[in-house]
């Protein structure tokens, strides 16, 4: 914690950055904090409630954050994957910001969680985490906390669904997607939704119906999932942001599995690693094509 604050103070005092984007405590749990005054660095904290993927504030769509000036962003190993994604797609330039990596022992599902971090309360994305020690950031602070408890595994969740008869699965998703009110919170929070003009906002022609109806909803969520395939950093902020509690991250997680098995690619935090998007292998499997 002190290391984090000291570093933040140095960066601000040295004028290396104008703002440090990290986490702070609040009555309703942890929330993102924007610290621009060295005197305020003690607001900054990091613990298992720091769920948010702050990389999203580097997303070029967030002009208002940009206007705050050069930023230092606190990222967990998993968040760094999103930063790498933005770099990979030339959305941001590495020299324009500073990364403060934090060693992570797993996080809760929600930022207002209380009690111990255990199998029940830990976020599914922490399952089998390999990036507790971030590698992309120029600064890494804190000691490596103990191995996180083994909790829910999304693969199991996917398997459970795939085990259902197709009709049941369809019913499940129709039920879930029917709830969607098309508030696009999933899009807003996503660090990798970088489009200047999202496809749902394209009117000529209108590929995706904007009305909150299963047809448009399905089209929207299928499209969103595909646009994130091979790019999604797995932070599942979309799901947390969803006011209707739709398990939308499952779609991303499922496709991540497909990308891994079919294209032999796993999204990592190396900005220079080639992405499977807009790429192919001549021997990609095609058993589904007659």
């Amino acid at each position, binding site marked *: 914690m002190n290391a984090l604050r000291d570093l933040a103070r140095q960066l601000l005092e040295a004028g290396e950055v104008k703002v440090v984007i990290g986490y702070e405590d609040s009555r309703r749990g942890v929330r993102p904090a924007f610290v621009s005054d060295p005197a305020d660095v003690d607001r900054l904290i990091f613990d298992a409630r720091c769920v948010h993927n702050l990389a999203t504030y580097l997303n070029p769509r967030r002009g208002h954050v940009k206007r705050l000036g050069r930023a230092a962003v606190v990222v967990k190993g998993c968040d760094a994957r999103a930063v790498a994604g933005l770099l990979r797609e030339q959305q941001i330039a590495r020299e324009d910001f500073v990364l403060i990596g934090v060693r992570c022992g797993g996080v809760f599902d929600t930022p207002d969680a209380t009690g111990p971090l255990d199998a029940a309360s830990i976020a599914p994305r922490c399952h089998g985490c390999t990036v507790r020690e971030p590698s992309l950031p120029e600064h890494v602070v804190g000691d490596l906390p103990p191995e996180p408890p083994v909790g829910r595994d999304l693969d199991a969740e996917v398997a459970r669904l795939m085990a259902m008869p197709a009709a049941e699965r369809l019913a499940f998703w129709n039920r879930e997607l029917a709830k969607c009110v098309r508030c696009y919170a999933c899009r807003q929070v996503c660090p990798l939704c970088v*489009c200047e003009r999202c*496809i749902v906002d*394209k009117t000529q*022609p209108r590929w995706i119906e904007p009305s909150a109806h299963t047809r448009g909803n399905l089209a929207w969520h299928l499209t969103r999932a595909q*646009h994130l395939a091979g790019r999604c950093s797995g932070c599942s902020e979309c799901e947390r942001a969803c006011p209707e509690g739709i398990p939308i991250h499952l779609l991303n997680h499922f496709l991540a599995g497909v990308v891994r098995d079919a294209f032999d690619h796993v999204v990592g935090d190396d900005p220079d690693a080639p992405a499977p998007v*807009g790429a192919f292998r001549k021997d990609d499997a095609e058993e589904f094509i007659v």
Partner: protein
Amino acid sequence: MARIGVFVCHCGENIARTVDCAAVAGSVADHPSVVCSVDYKYMCSDPGQNLVKDAITEHGLDGVVVAACSPHMHLKTFRRAASNAGLNAYLVEMANIREQCAWIHPRTPETTVKATDLVRAMVEKVKQNVPLEPIRIPVTPTALVIGGGIAGIQAALDIAEAGRDVIIVEKEPSLGGHMSQLSETFPTLDCSQCILTPRMVDAYQHPRIKLYTYSEVEKLEGYIGNFEVTIRKKGRSVDIDTCTGCGACMEVCPSKKALDEFDMGLRTRTAVYTPFPQAVPNKPVIDREHCLHYKAEARAIARGKPVKAVCQKCAKACAADAISFDGGDELIKEKVGAVVVATGFQLYSVAKDQPEPYLEGYGEYGYGADPDIVDGLQFERLASASGPTGGKILCPSNGQAPKTIVFIQCTGSRDPAKGIEYCSGVCCMYTAKHAMLYQHSVHGGRAVVFYMDIRATGKGYDAFTRRAAEESGAEYVRGRVSAIYRADGKLVVKGVDTLGGEPMTVQADMVVLATAIRPQPGIKELAQKLSISYDQHGFLNEAHPKLRPVETNTAGIFLAGCSQAPRDIPDSVAMASATAAKVLALFSRSEMEREPQVAKVDQATCSGCFHCERACAYGAVEHLEVKDRRGNVLRVVAQINPGVCQGCGTCAANCPSKSIELDGFTDAQVFASIQALSL
């Protein structure tokens, strides 16, 4: 409100037999914004076309749908007709109610319904069509030919003869390439020099051909019709224009130890040299690795000492005063419209040291270290009248004529264990030639040819190999050689006769290895400079293995000769002429006209993720900086170069925000078709 005309063709009975054309025309007539809908026996006939033209003027149509055969058949026809009538050609579409309806369905109501649907869908599409103009790209009618071997010379001459300018870049000091090293050529056994030299001179003297020898391509920028090439002219130290080619410099040069590349190291040459007597231009160059002055200069610089003039006997001996030790490399820029890559080949070496990690030499052949184990090109030099032995085939070790000679085909080729799995194509033929040349030169000698298969598919080729076996009496033995070593002064060749099923050992005086053909060293670097692709061995990739064998995936860049795959002289020459034809077609007009089916980026909504760039096989996507008034870069967005874009639309489908449209198949057009057809 659009004004669409629909014209339903009977195609004689072809369509009318199963489709009720009148009904189709009738039911489409009251489709929204259809202002005229007629059917006629033969739409593609003159009266039929006139029907369309008249309707365009009469009804002021802004869209035409011809329901007839496949657009592959007549779309151009009707588009031409329409533009003659003053309607933009790209406002015309065809509904295919023949191949994909009338001919595959019985005469039932459903068939007519389907035909109507297809027409309606096309009407909906045409409503979304916009006028397009063919894309015109200015063309610089000058060709760059990389490589001055037979392929390069042929391409250059063909293009120049057709009245276009050509620039040849050859990395050696002379034109000619490998062909100039050959003694005779198969299948006619005429002398290589005799047929090649005139071509070299023609190319040299041609008013439309500019020749850069001892030069290499440094950089290529731009796109089809509009390339700019940077050429590195290596320091020659001899002024070609003032040099008279008298050769006095070579006589006085004290450095005589350099291995003669042209003679494949079978003799040495001086540091200032012309590669061979018929060299074009016949002007020497100073080899800075071996020249005493340059060696001293290098040493001095290394030690940080002042550079002093050393030797320079050649300069003193030069009456024309053409030699200067000051000049270094020179970079020259030229504008060209097309590029022919004819960089040729090198021979695989059986030596232990290999240029690529995946290649292995032949330890079992003593890595070819024995002086009497030579490769194909060395043998050519031994057999060549201008060669080190004046055309007598003699063992390098002792200058004796080999009483017994062994030729080994497929050395390196078709040998995955050594790293090369492909067939080199020419070895069967030149080995047969070698066997004949040997028999002509060493009477009563014994020639044994170890081969795997005889691949002699060219005209007169098989007869040629038969002659080698039957008339010249070369012993053809099918089998690979396991080992070669020297014992009691002989080269012991441990082979096998697989047809007889017997091991077979030959005591030979000379062994000739028909080593594999490999692309030139540095080919991959060149390919990267030209942004064209290559296979794992470095052979350059053609655009389509069957239908576009001399084109690359980069428009305006073409391939000739061994740069693309192992080839013999006739094939290389034919291929070179093919590239010339392609180049000349491109140069036939001052502007290239291309179908306007290209992608466009909506820069307002592009977020610059460049998924499009990754997906483009043609490198048509460029980065465009969007700047504010003060010139600060706000965003970088994608921009598509219409000259390079081929119109496949892969970028459009890859664009997450649908900020790319493909003219002719815009989202609006596709959307309209889907709407109409799914209901």
